């Protein structure tokens, strides 16, 4: 069974985001995915993320945001992870800033259900204090990967 670690490589993790604003941060993480050859089109992917973000704000509390999109611009299911020590304001209506950003990219060919299950697993796992604190304090990308490996992705691949 695949694990969350399989969706991430050290080069799609950035422990010190340069971005200070939401769209800079999403762009920075999307560029990492693009450089790793995980996207067909960075622009089309960013557009899909923006459309999703317009429907709902993806900050989920606890200083975490999970922007996400499923579209044909994605080659391979991936999660890019960014940390911001200063914090980035995500929801214009809320003062709370995000320090941990997980950008989920899913190919359009993947079942919608699989996509939603991935998001659900990701969201649930972040409620684990040990896991979340571990991500915040990890000294390097390898340490982040080690934290992701035990998280099983028990998702069904059939549409129903």
């Amino acid at each position, binding site marked *: 069974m695949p694990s969350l670690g399989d969706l991430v490589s050290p080069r799609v993790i950035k422990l010190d985001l340069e971005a200070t604003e939401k769209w800079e941060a999403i762009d920075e993480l999307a560029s990492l995915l693009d450089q790793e050859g995980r996207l067909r089109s960075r622009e089309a992917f960013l557009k899909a993320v923006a459309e999703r973000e317009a*429907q*709902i704000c*993806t900050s*989920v*509390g*606890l200083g975490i945001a*999970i922007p996400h999109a499923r579209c044909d611009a994605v080659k391979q299911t991936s999660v890019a992870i960014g940390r911001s020590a200063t914090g980035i304001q995500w929801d214009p209506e809320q003062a709370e800033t995000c320090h941990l950003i997980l950008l989920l990219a899913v190919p359009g060919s993947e079942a*919608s*259900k699989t996509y*939603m*299950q991935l*998001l*659900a697993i*990701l*969201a*649930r796992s*972040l*409620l684990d204090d040990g896991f979340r604190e571990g991500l915040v304090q990890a000294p390097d990308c390898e340490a982040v990967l080690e934290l992701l490996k035990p998280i099983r992705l028990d998702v069904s691949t059939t549409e129903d």
Partner: protein
Amino acid sequence: MSDIFLVAVTNCPSGVAHTYMAAEALERAAKKRNIRIKVETQSSLGVENKISQEEANAAQGVILTSDIKILDSDRFEGKPTVSDYATKIIRDPDTIIEAVLELLAPSQG
């Protein structure tokens, strides 16, 4: 384990993230207090961990997210019920559990 049994239903306007995070937050907060809880999720993935009418009857208190309408909420009619936004439950599940316990307090003697 205490004798208290709670049920909860979580949902959110779109997607699934808040629904599952709120469910997880409630399960963790209840476990910390040794309270039994069953949390049903209503999301784009459909209804999971569904609470039966029997379980609803057996529960002393009910916690609901208030973001959008809960399906089949008539299961919980007459039960002490508290509700709040999913994001608030994610940030602070303890407060809503305390709120529902407070509603139960008189009958707990």
